């Protein structure tokens, strides 16, 4: 029983990481339809922001928490810049966008290599997050718990912004009917850039979280980019709720399979499961449905 619980929690931990890295994509890919291959490098930008901040401010782990807002800003700004320079010229041309952003991704990786060196670096976690927490005989890694908390907080914040703020209304309106939004007096291009800023900024937040569980390196983003896209596709394009469920489901599935087999076999099995699922439900877990679109 304890083994099952421990293993499920490991899965929830993996799920939380998946959710964090995919959350920004639910906006830029899910809502706007942009296949941004450089999303992983926004994660990297967030992670390096935490690293730089920790080195220049202090050595204590607490600065990781302080790094969240700057990481959001740094990654968000790079994202908004990318949107302004390239992506906005390529809307409705998904294949070109894919190639261009992939090129940008490689350039950003090289930039990181030039600035920070090729070897991986690390941040120091706050003492609070280094140990384990025991709850009813189940051992929970504190850093995983922190990531879970951050993931849930980010989902909550994003949901509230989209549901309740004027900006959220504008973002949803532009996605649903761009021309109508424009002729209603909404500056749709500015909304695009803001949406991209938030989506990229969330990748930066994910980057800070990832420094708790792994090293920081120029190619760290590539490890997550495919998984992030998978979460959004399986969850159903444009559906936050679908991505949340998918992230945790894939995480638990991965960890259970890892326990009974090996890491690589588990990875393959999860991918096979995703392919089978998409054969059965190509539109993903959740889809948008209304009378007007039926």
């Amino acid at each position, binding site marked *: 029983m304890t083994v099952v619980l421990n293993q499920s929690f490991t899965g929830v931990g993996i799920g939380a990481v998946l959710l964090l890295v995919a959350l920004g994509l639910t906006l830029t890919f899910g809502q706007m339809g942009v296949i941004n291959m450089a999303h992983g490098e926004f994660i990297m930008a967030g992670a390096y922001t935490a690293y730089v901040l920790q080195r220049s401010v202090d050595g204590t782990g607490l600065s990781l928490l302080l790094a969240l807002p700057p990481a959001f800003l740094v990654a968000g700004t790079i994202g908004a810049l990318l949107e302004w320079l390239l992506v906005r010229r390529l809307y409705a041309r998904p294949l070109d966008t894919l190639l261009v952003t992939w090129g940008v991704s490689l350039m950003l990786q090289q930039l990181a290599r030039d600035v920070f060196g090729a070897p991986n670096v690390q941040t120091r976690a706050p003492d609070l997050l280094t140990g384990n927490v025991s709850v009813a005989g189940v051992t929970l890694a504190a850093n995983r718990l922190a990531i879970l908390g951050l993931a849930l907080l980010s989902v909550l914040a994003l949901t509230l912004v989209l549901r309740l703020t*004027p900006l959220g209304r504008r973002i949803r309106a532009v996605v649903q*009917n761009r*021309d109508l939004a*424009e*002729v*209603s007096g*909404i500056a749709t291009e500015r909304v695009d850039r803001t949406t991209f800023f938030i989506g990229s900024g969330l990748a930066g937040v994910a980057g800070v979280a990832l420094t708790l569980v792994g090293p920081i390196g120029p190619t760290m983003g590539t490890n997550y980019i495919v998984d992030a896209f998978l979460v959004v596709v399986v969850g159903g394009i444009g559906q936050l709720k679908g991505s949340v469920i998918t992230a945790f489901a894939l995480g638990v599935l991965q960890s259970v399979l890892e326990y009974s087999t090996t890491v690589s076999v588990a990875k393959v099995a999860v991918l096979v499961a995703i392919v089978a699922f998409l054969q059965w439900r190509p539109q993903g877990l959740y889809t948008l449905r209304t009378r*007007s679109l039926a």
Partner: protein
Amino acid sequence: MLEIDAVHAGYDRTTVLHGVSVAVPEGGVAAVLGHNGAGKSTLLRVAMGLLRPRSGTVLLDGEDITRLAPHRRVARGMAYVPQGQQCFPHLTTAENLRLVADGRVNGRRAVAEVLDLFPVLRELSGRRAGLLSGGQRQQLAIARALITRPRLLLLDEPTEGIQPSVVADIEETILALAGRHGLSVLLVEQHVGFALRAAQRYHVLEAGRVTSSGAGGTAAERTVREALSV
């Protein structure tokens, strides 16, 4: 108020408008009549800035706005109700209106005013706009356009595809709006009778050209019907 002058426009290789000129007088109503495919909607898209004309100009209060983005035209007092009862389907009725009112001076009051004009929307405020009937969605569309307190309203076949019981309501509202002080209207229609009742001036559009124009009013009905049946 609005002058569309010698506009050529189209999509890709097809040209839809071949040098169309239409003017909307200050505070007046101009109607553009024509069959399907004559280029009526394209003309409104050019007027609103959704489609850039290949040549020709669009003037608002004498100022050239041909290359101005649509949302900037809204800021200058234009509003547009496109064809097909368009709305934001996954936003509630209330959100559809608040969205436009956000950040505007007296935005809340503007919402209250349009809800007084279309009381049915008040009862539907929590419902997703995509679930409304065609007639309700058209009322929402007109309400949405009025929130910006326009000086010039562009209407694209406002009663097309709407259940007959609601058509009379909408026509009455439009006639009332047309009589409002300081509101000019460019009305695109297939229903000759209604359009001429509302308009001071009409233009018949055929295959992308204005083939006849004249003073509005019911007296012109026969001439227009003959022009259209050719």
